[in-house]
């Protein structure tokens, strides 16, 4: 197990190196010369050349790539093409917002999905089952921006229970140790602030949680239904075990493998969903920043963010692989 884990971790730098080369080349293959874009429509050819030199875009590709990798190894993500700010500073300013949104959304989505899937499988063919399936179909099919606007209209405009977008309570930002407003509010002994910050989180988290909830519910249901057909379940029931312990101890655990896989894979859609959710709710996170830097051809920022996403995705998948062994003792990584 440990050896397997170490081997998987050893692959990680290779994956990242591949991702770095891919994004580096892809960006440069995109139409749209960043020097011309930054210099503006009115720029003369000389001005475009000057910008190209400033950004070192006039050097051969391999020189640019090696220089970037060298900086990366020294922990330097470079400076933004657009305003000269350190990319690490730009990312650090927005990362807590996205984490504060995405982690609760993933937890909520998985938890709710498990419960719903369990209900649907247990009461197969009933209204429970149909209801859950319709809900999960909606969760997959309804566009995030539309769902976001509907929730805003109901809870913020009509009922006025929740704030209309934004992240910060009225009194503004709080400089705390974690960067997460709710947590920092609690740590600073300001429950009212933490409560207000949490109210800002409610709608974006629900919106972002819908997709993972829907997929987890569907997979849990079908996987459970399959397991429930197995001989050992029949044996357990035949031994006289009650329905709930059979379901929880014997069936659910064995049904979890595809569910865990789906959770690992849903990191990708979660990032995509975060872009839309952040846009609808005016949430100042990394999702919106990604869009802005891609449109602005801000190479250093795009490269850093894609690499970060690759790292996240690869790590999540290693963790998913390892969790198989924990869930199912028959799986051995040797």
């Amino acid at each position, binding site marked *: 197990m440990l050896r397997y884990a170490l081997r998987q971790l050893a692959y990680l730098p290779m994956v990242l190196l591949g991702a770095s080369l891919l994004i580096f080349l892809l960006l440069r293959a995109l139409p*749209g010369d960043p020097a011309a874009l*930054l210099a503006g429509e009115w*720029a003369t050819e000389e001005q475009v050349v000057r910008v190209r030199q400033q950004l070192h875009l006039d050097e051969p590709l391999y020189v640019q790539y090696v220089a970037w990798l060298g900086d990366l190894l020294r922990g330097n993500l470079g400076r933004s093409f657009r305003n000269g700010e350190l990319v690490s500073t730009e990312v650090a300013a927005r990362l807590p917002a996205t984490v504060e949104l995405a982690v609760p959304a993933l937890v909520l989505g998985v938890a709710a999905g498990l419960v719903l899937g369990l209900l649907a499988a247990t009461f197969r063919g009933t209204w429970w089952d149909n209801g859950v399936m319709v809900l999960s179909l909606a969760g997959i099919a309804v566009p995030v921006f539309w769902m976001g606007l509907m929730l805003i209209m109901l809870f913020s405009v009509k009922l006025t229970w929740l704030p*209309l977008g934004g992240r910060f309570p009225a009194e503004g930002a709080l400089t705390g140790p974690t960067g997460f407003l709710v947590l920092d509010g609690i740590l600073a002994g300001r429950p009212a602030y933490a409560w207000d910050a949490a109210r800002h989180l409610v709608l974006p988290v629900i919106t972002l949680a819908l997709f993972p909830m829907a997929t987890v519910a569907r997979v849990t249901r079908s996987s459970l239904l399959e397991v429930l057909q197995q001989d050992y379940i029949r044996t357990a029931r035949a031994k006289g075990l009650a329905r709930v312990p059979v379901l929880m101890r014997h069936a659910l655990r064995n049904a979890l493998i595809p569910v865990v896989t789906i959770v690992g894979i849903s990191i990708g859609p979660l990032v995509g969903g975060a872009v839309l959710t952040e846009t609808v709710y005016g949430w100042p996170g990394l999702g919106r*920043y990604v869009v802005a830097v891609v449109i602005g051809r801000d190479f250093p920022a795009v490269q850093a963010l894609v690499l970060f996403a690759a790292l996240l995705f690869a790590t999540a998948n290693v963790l998913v692989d390892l969790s198989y062994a924990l869930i199912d003792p028959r799986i051995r990584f040797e």
Partner: protein
Amino acid sequence: MGRATSGKVRALAIAVVLGLLAWVVVAAPGQAAPTPAPQPGGTLIFGRASDAVTLDPNDSPDTESTLVSGLIGDSLVRFKPGTLEVQPWLARSWQVLDNGTRWRIKLRDGVRFTDGTPVNAQAVEFTFKRMIDPNHPYNKYGKWNLALAIYEQLRDVKAVDNMTVDFVLAEPFAPFLTALASPRGSIVSPTAVQKDPQNFFKAPVGSGPFKVVEWRKDDRIVLERNDQYWEQVPYLERVIFRVIPENSARVLALVRGDIQAMIAIDPTSYEVLKRNAFLIVQQSPGLQHSYLAPNLLKKPFDDVRVRRALYHAINRKALVDNFWIGASLARGVMPTAMLGFHEGLKWPEYDPEKAKALLREAGLASGFKTSISTFDRGRSHTPEPAKAAQTIQADLAKVGIQVDINLLEINALLGDVRAARHDMYMAGFNPLIPDAWTIMFTQFDSRRAIIGRANNFSFYRNPEYDALNDQANQAANPRIRASIYKKMQEIIYRDAVRVDIADVDNVVAFRNVVQNLKNDPVGSFYMQYVWMKK
């Protein structure tokens, strides 16, 4: 199939959202009251779609940045509110010397930056040298792309004494005064730059009516009034620029009162906002303009009859009504808000029969084949390039002209048209310097029709016209310049050089408690005159 379905779903979703939006937004009418005297105090929260890139006024690359940084600094001259007329500001007076190549500017006494240091000739020299001189110690902290384009003719800046500065130009350039009114020419505090050059762009120090308190990236920029402001001390205590990227969410925030004003209004929200009695939607002439430029180097566009036929063949009004919502039909080559605009020219009407007759006269009774090159996606001056091009294609087909459409990414497109590879180019602009020069020189002079680096995308070349440009560039008197530009517009009119389509208006929506908020032609706001009714 999948794409078409998702398109339908999206259209349906948008329709439902808009329906509900209308239901939420339309509210009972408010009561009109007589306008009372300005009341000090209060906070104006201003919603918009994206954040500033930098707050350094000199390095501002876009209007989102300038909207904020223009309130932090003062420039030497400014536009009289609501117009493009230049008036003294930090400059008390100016003198044009050495045949128009040296501008001597006397500064206003007693003005201080918000850090307490004085606004003097040394600060002006520092500000401009930081932008234009690559050897200046603080030049490396900025990009200066637009500033370098605006101040292209500027060669040197020298403090003559404590309150007098000389600007030395490469050649006589009358629009230089207008160029000085740009927020890129805001004077910044040298002390503040020297203290933290790397981070100056986050909290710049100028002498303007407001100062930066906080910038939470992608969320808000908080400005506080400068109580020591030398002119009208702002009534508002604070102005907050909030970023709400989603159009409908921004509209809902305005309706609910979370924000008091907003810009970036899409066509559908425009109608919804107009129906709400608590809101005011203000539309005023802007400077963005769009047009269709045939390439005169290519046959048959070298024939003026063919170019005039284009004017008669294209139903410009229908085009603008459908695809330029929040815009007006162009009434000439320049936006109506620009100084020197010629009121007296009546541009050809839509008349396909007349177009056919002109084509027959030119020996093209059976029509011809050509193409339109334009942007692959909407831009502020040309919101729906593909649909607009298709409509023109249909209009021209009626008179026998067959049109292919090339939708290209902006840089590829510019590469093509600068090299004169296009037949017709549907384009638009947001003028670099809000002066007739931007259009009359940049877009029609033969010196800007050099293949490979042209801005004169029609490749119109006329020595008589060029000579008038020289006269206009040397005429420091605005009235004389305006009369020269009128003469030039008559020449362009006679030669039917291109088909002008739309003038894009500036649109701002705000709650009726907000008083005196006016969008200037350049798109900025003088927030120091704005106040809130309590």
